[in-house]
């Protein structure tokens, strides 16, 4: 059962990833990206991290993707006749061959490592959300605070960048 779901999820996520970069209409690309994000959430459930799957659906599919679609709607981008770069075939070939070499090397690696103490039983005993919370507020507190400051900076930066300049506002009010 797990094997079936793994192959289903990997097939659909790779196909929707290709569609994300290959479709002509930007809105269709956004919808393909939504499919990809939901299937990545499926991967997280398969890997026994259900809190992360919910975060993926709520934050990625719910917030970030809606932001993208809003900007698409706001800008009203036309589908151009030349969507791709001039040397698309060459770039794709070179990148795919480099990726193939990486894939070959990665598939041969044994990936052996020491195991931690957060086994399935230990996590299942307290619940995944609580285990994540205890780790994040004990071992990763500084990183958590840095992320908080980063998000504050991102909010302020986005407002400052996207604000209509004062002179432009006056110009438009004069015309009307």
């Amino acid at each position: 059962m797990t094997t079936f779901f793994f192959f289903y999820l990997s097939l659909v996520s790779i196909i929707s990833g290709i569609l994300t970069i290959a479709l002509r209409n930007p809105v269709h690309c956004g919808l393909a990206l939504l499919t990809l994000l939901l299937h990545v959430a499926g991967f997280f459930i398969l890997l026994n991290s259900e809190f992360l799957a919910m975060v993926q659906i709520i934050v990625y599919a719910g917030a970030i993707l809606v932001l993208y679609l809003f900007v698409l709607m706001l800008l009203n981008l036309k589908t151009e006749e030349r969507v791709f770069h001039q040397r698309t075939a060459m770039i794709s070939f070179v990148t795919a061959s480099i990726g193939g070499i990486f894939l070959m090397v990665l598939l041969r690696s044994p990936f052996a490592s020491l195991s931690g103490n957060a086994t399935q039983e230990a996590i299942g005993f307290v619940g995944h959300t609580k285990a994540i919370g205890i780790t994040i507020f004990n071992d990763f507190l500084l990183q958590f605070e840095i992320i908080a400051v980063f998000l504050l900076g991102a909010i302020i930066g986005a407002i400052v960048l996207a604000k209509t300049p004062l002179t432009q506002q006056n110009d438009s009010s004069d015309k009307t």
Partner: protein
Amino acid sequence: MIPLSYYVAVATTLFVIGLVGVLIRRNFIIVFMSIEVMLNAANINLVAFASYFDALDGQIAAIFVIAIAAGEAAIGLAIIIVVFRRKIATNVDQLNLLKW
């Protein structure tokens, strides 16, 4: 139990797809979407390794990656809106102000 290499293979494929998308597309927003594809590939890797080696650190890192992606999307889309409003460019090739 699925071998860890399979997850790494899927993540590598998705990463290459995102990289190709960043390089070949001319539309701003789709370049940003390709970056999201690459970040998701990295997240699959982080969570797969965390799950197979019984450590929570990788999952915490994945949460941080999601937070960074949210901030990056907000700032990037604000820059795109400014570029469009000032009519500086309509696709990525035309943005060459900082080109060496």
